[in-house]
């Protein structure tokens, strides 16, 4: 029997269509963010030596596979299950799932979790035991990332305070980077990196590095604009378009700032740092891409690109922590910086818009709390891995390359 068309059925149909548009947008964005995985893989492979290429590609492949399953089984529930005391979500989550929205949301969040894990592989590249890295990825995506994520996105204590991290400068990027920082420090520098002085260990293929950065930039539109989680109606399309614009402007400004600063400091425009500058701008805008103006996005990008050059130098030359791809500076320092800058540039509540210092305070608190969480848990995980499976390959393997000894195959013949 055919239903009669009434205003009620018509309204229901319109609502349903709008709902479908939202879900389709979230799934498209999910695919875009998934595509950041090859972006990371190419960037990290390019910035490291050819003898370790199969190894770094393997890590990028495996952390996505492992992370997807670990986040589905445990992580998602910890992050988005019913809140317990503001700290974690409730297991198991299946009962709470609404089949229509939540599966697309689960997918979207899965690719985010995998992004956090994959950041670490760059920081510890070229010397880390493969087994240890797999175990680390499991614990990160199942437990560490979801818990701090719950504080901010899952209804935990930081979200109650009004902490604003729209698409994950802190939730995703900083968490990954701080863990990478601890990992790189505990594992120690690559052989030959610091012997009295700071040596350059040039990556083997800047073509790959550049391709990787372009892919990441492309994926970032899904990362940030997808976090709107809706696309139906004028309000949403305006918001998404705004996010596309701020994201792109900040990435561009980050590139130019890193280019100019490195040009002045090292007497020539260097590609390797300019590429990091693009990512720095993108990471920094991620927290506030929805609530800062396009002009502010440019300023945030410029600050991020500047911080990138000095951050890389600081970590390399002062702390002497060997981060082959610059992951800690790109994702950690700029993730924190971008999150804090929301407190200045937010059109509502930002210091520069007469909003006083309360939002800024909350932003700083969130950055510090998440950093403490990530640094602390990473310290424990890496120390445990060190005494159990071992963290570092032998000197002989490191010299000959991880490809042949760990995996028995080379990327190049």
């Amino acid at each position, binding site marked *: 029997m055919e239903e009669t068309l009434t205003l009620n059925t018509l309204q229901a149909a319109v609502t349903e269509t709008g709902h479908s548009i939202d879900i389709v947008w979230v799934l498209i964005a999910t695919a875009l963010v998934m595509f950041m995985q090859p972006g990371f893989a190419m960037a990290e492979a390019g*910035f490291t030596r050819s003898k370790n290429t199969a190894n770094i590609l393997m890590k990028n492949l495996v952390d996505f596979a492992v992370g997807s399953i670990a986040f589905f089984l445990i992580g998602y529930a910890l992050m988005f299950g019913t809140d317990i005391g503001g700290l974690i979500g409730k297991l198991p989550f299946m009962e709470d799932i609404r089949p229509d929205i939540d599966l697309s949301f689960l997918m979207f969040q899965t690719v985010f979790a995998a992004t956090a894990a994959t950041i670490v592989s760059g920081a510890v590249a070229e010397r880390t035991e493969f087994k240890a890295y797999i175990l680390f990825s499991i614990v990160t995506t199942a437990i560490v990332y979801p818990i701090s994520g719950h504080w901010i996105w899952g209804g935990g204590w930081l979200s109650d305070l009004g902490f604003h991290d729209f698409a994950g400068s802190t939730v995703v990027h900083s968490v990954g980077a701080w863990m990478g920082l601890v990992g790189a420090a505990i594992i120690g520098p690559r052989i030959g990196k610091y012997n009295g002085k*700071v*040596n*350059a*260990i*040039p*990556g083997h293929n800047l073509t790959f590095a550049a391709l990787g950065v372009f892919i990441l930039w492309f994926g970032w539109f899904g990362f940030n604009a997808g976090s709107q989680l809706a696309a139906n109606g004028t309000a949403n399309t305006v918001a998404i378009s705004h996010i596309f614009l701020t994201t792109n402007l900040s990435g561009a400004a980050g590139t130019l700032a890193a280019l100019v600063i*490195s040009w002045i*400091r*090292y*007497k*020539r425009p*260097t590609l*390797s*740092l300019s590429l*990091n500058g693009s990512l720095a701008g993108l990471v920094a805008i991620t927290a506030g891409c929805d609530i800062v103006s396009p002009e502010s996005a440019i300023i945030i990008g410029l600050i991020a690109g500047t911080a990138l*050059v000095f951050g*890389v*130098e600081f970590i*390399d*030359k002062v702390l002497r922590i060997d981060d082959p791809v*610059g992951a800690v500076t790109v994702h950690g320092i700029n993730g924190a910086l971008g999150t804090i800058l929301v407190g200045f540039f937010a059109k509502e509540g930002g210091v520069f818009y007469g909003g006083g210092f309360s939002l800024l305070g909350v932003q700083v608190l969130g950055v510090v709390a998440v950093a403490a969480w990530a640094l602390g848990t990473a310290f424990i995980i890496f120390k445990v891995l060190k005494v159990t499976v071992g963290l570092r390959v032998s000197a002989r393997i490191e010299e000959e390359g991880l490809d042949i000894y760990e995996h028995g195959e080379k990327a190049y013949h």
Partner: protein
Amino acid sequence: MKKIEAIIRKTKFEEVKKGLHNIGIDYLSFWDVRGVGKSVEERVYRGVIYDTSSIERTLISFIVRDKYVDNCIVSIRENAFTGEIGDGRIFVYNVEDAYRIRTGDSGDRSLYDEE
């Protein structure tokens, strides 16, 4: 018979090859080689300024009858010349004997086809 080896700039290889071809040297071997020396190039990678310790050059090598040696040296010098430090070297060696594997021809005869 003499063996002539020359270390030349990579950018000069095509000119040197052409020059030798013009004076009848059609066969030669070459390698891209790296060496160490006093002249180093400054590079920057991710904020670290460093010197490359290796210098890239092309090494060419061929065997000629004695009467061609002088022409060859003149030709290589002409075509590999920029006037800047690092234009390279030419070395000339005596070759005791040579055989063509297919025919068994030896000495000078092994170097050229029957005329």
